[in-house]
């Protein structure tokens, strides 16, 4: 019998299933993966925003050599130009015989020498990126890089764009985060220095996070994206500990713990004032100090109450292409009295603490997974006032949309109040253009 309904499940049912029983439609290896425009970020680990390639180039004074079949570098043709890293990307294309013999690996050192001549300025680091073909060939890239370093005199760093291992222990975006920090060397520890890990672009400097941390005696706060030179980047090796703002950095943080003895604390981005406040207090307690966030906390609560009084009862939908965890944001919106009709997102075990909140606050919210083959039948829901996230805006083009997907990363009370301001501006502004045909 033909199924013409898109798969969805309520928040209550999904939370009830538990992290060990996530339904098959949310597990990519259980079915074909539908390609709607909303799944572009999912479908390619090098697709849009910060994929593996752009992320790897966060290492200062580096260039990247993608060693792969031509198809793996195709998106870089467009994205590297749009996002400004075209002159730092180089390609060594595999031939058909290489798929069997692995002979392309023997050409890497020569390629690096030619790149070093062509690149302006001359790089100090070459990040080698290999893809699924080499994963299946069993390429030992670390060995290849060691040999290339010896032959060229440049630092050569391995990185992996293995879409085949997306649900494995080291999915591509987690692995590249480890690569980014892999050149850090152990320095003399500075008690007042920490690193923020998790985002590829800076945390909005207006965030109170910096002020609150300074109040705790932390005066030097490093983010990998802020360093222009390899020498400056090495300051991160002197950090007392790391704050992990995004769970995909956990693997990299573990590596720094093992390699440099640098502990870490998970410190996720939240959109609920009480929880933000609580998180600051817990950090302060762990450090044996105080978090002076009172005025910011009050201001955030006041902004939240005003938003609630004006917009409670509106209907919204939340996607995953946004600077927030979709389930955490959906739960927070439900807490503010909005009716969260749907969430478009993949689900991992990391989602469950937030799903718990959503299931309690809005148990009937329907969760869709953009990758289910049944999503070819998704039809726009008509009674939605606001969508949040680029993908949600695509699924429901007639609703007002807040993409909330900028390069500066919102965080803390400031991020929360900025979100409310942006949402208010969208809701009070002109109606959304009909974007049908742009995103299906």
């Amino acid at each position, binding site marked *: 019998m033909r199924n013409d309904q898109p798969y969805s499940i309520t928040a209550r049912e999904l939370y009830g299933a538990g992290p060990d029983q996530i339904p098959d439609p949310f597990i990519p290896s259980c079915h074909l993966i539908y390609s709607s*425009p909303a799944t572009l970020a999912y479908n390619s680990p090098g697709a849009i925003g910060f994929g593996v390639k752009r992320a790897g180039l966060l290492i200062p004074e580096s260039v990247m050599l993608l060693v792969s079949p031509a198809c793996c570098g195709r998106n870089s043709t467009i994205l590297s130009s749009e996002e400004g890293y075209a002159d730092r990307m180089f390609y060594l294309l595999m031939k058909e015989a290489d798929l069997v013999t692995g002979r392309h690996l023997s050409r890497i050192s020569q390629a690096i020498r030619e790149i070093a001549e062509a690149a302006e300025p001359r790089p100090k680091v070459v990040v080698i990126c290999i893809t699924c073909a080499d994963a299946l060939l069993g390429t030992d890239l670390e060995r290849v890089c060691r040999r290339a370093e010896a032959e060229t005199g440049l630092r050569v760093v391995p990185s992996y764009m293995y879409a085949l291992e997306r649900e494995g222990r080291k999915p591509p975006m987690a692995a590249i985060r480890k690569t980014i920090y892999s050149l850090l060397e152990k320095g003399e520890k500075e008690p007042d220095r920490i690193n923020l890990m998790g985002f590829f672009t800076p945390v909005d400097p207006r965030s109170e996070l910096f002020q609150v941390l300074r109040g705790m005696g932390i005066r030097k706060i490093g983010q990998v994206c802020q360093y222009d030179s390899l020498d400056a980047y090495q300051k991160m090796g002197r950090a007392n500990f790391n704050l992990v703002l995004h769970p995909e950095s956990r693997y990299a943080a573990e590596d720094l713990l093992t390699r440099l003895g640098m502990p870490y604390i998970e410190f996720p981005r939240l959109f609920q004032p009480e929880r933000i406040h609580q998180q600051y207090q817990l950090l302060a307690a762990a450090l044996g100090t105080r978090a002076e966030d009172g005025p910011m906390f009050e201001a955030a609560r006041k902004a939240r109450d005003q938003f609630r009084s004006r917009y409670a009862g509106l209907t919204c939908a939340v996607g995953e292409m946004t600077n927030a965890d979709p389930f955490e944001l959906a739960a927070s919106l439900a807490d503010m009295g909005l009716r969260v009709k749907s969430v478009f997102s993949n689900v991992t075990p990391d989602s469950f603490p937030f799903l718990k909140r959503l299931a309690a606050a809005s148990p009937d919210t329907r969760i869709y997974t953009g990758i289910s083959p049944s999503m070819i039948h998704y039809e726009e829901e008509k009674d939605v006032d606001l969508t949040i996230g680029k993908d949600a805006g695509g699924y429901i083009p007639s609703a007002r949309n807040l993409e909330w997907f900028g390069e500066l990363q919102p965080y803390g009370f400031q991020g929360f109040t900025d979100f409310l301001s942006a949402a208010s501006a969208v809701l009070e502004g002109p109606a959304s253009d009909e974007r049908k045909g742009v995103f299906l």
Partner: protein
Amino acid sequence: MKGLYRYLSPAAPDQSGAVSVLFEQGGLIVVLDAGGCTGNICGFDEPRWFLRKSAVYSAGIRDMDAILGRDDKLIDKLQEAVDTADARFIALIGTPVPSVIGTDYRALARLARKRYGLPVIWTDTAGIDSYEKGASKAYLALIDLAEELFGGEKADRRAFPSSVMPAPGVPAAGTTAAGSADAGSTEAPGSGSGSAPLPAGRVLVWGATPLDLPAADGALCLRRRIAAREGVPEDQVVTIGMDSRLEDLRDLGGVRKNLVCAPSGFAPARRLAKAFGTPWEACFPVPPEAAGLARDIPHACRVLILHQQVLADGLREVLEAGRPDLQITTASLFTMDPALARPAGGFDGLAAPPDTELPGEDELVRFVKENHFDAVIGDPIYFRALKSPELIRIPLAHFAQSGGMYRPACDEDAWII
């Protein structure tokens, strides 16, 4: 060194070309990849993906699936898509992953057909070759599919290997995948025409996909220009791959003429010429306004047009009509048919090299330098590698090279500076 791209970046690969041909044909398209290839195909090489729904799926292959060769799991996975998409056939699109593990497409197709009762076609694309080779394979597979679905008076004259699992009782021809049979043939264009009068009927245009047409309305404009050139009503001109349906491939033996507007169309046109005696020719009618592209080129210059071969030839024809003082050569980083290439020549002391297929970046740089071209007309991406300050650079976007970066809003805009 060969294969190293320091200035350019990879063009659309063969798997994108295959999907481009099949996108509008109503099939369930399954890219045999882990997800990244599908993301690249849909997000960067298929502009229609943002405009209409098409049943394009990634097989979502994972490492252990590949290592253990779990074809049965892939067949199982098709179930939900078959149940939810109203597909007339299944198309399996190869990528590097099945190439490395040596997937037997024929066996996979047989399993899928047996399980779901739908015709199954495939392209043994590997993500290594450029787009036009994959598009060629998809065209040949489509012809096989059409023969199976619609039959035809001369269907029994099929002379080429098949990439479709045939209906029960019809023996499959050949043993290799589509696209391999006629590639590289040097049969002269139009050789199928003979001296018999052209039969009445439609004109089919092969090679017409967004990867080779200038803009979203490129197929429409091309049909209009071809209709005017051929003296047939517009609705008798069908661009296979864009604005066409599977039904347009009915009665392939009865078409009046096959036109090839891009190199991916050579193989299907030759195959149909051999099977049905249908005449064909390579032809990309370029509007006369395109002559303006040469307006800033000084008198008596050497000019290089870098594009897909058939479009480049069409543009050269228009430019030479208005500017006989120019010595124009065409070259391409994609397949060129030697039979269509103009040999070395020259006049008034201006030597011109032969039209040349360039394997890569190094060869492009050397070709331009050694032949002392004064002007290059081509995709702006090429200009990254052509750094001589004296060179006149005239942009002419090619979607297969630069994707949507320089794509004009409409066909008309493509031909003006």
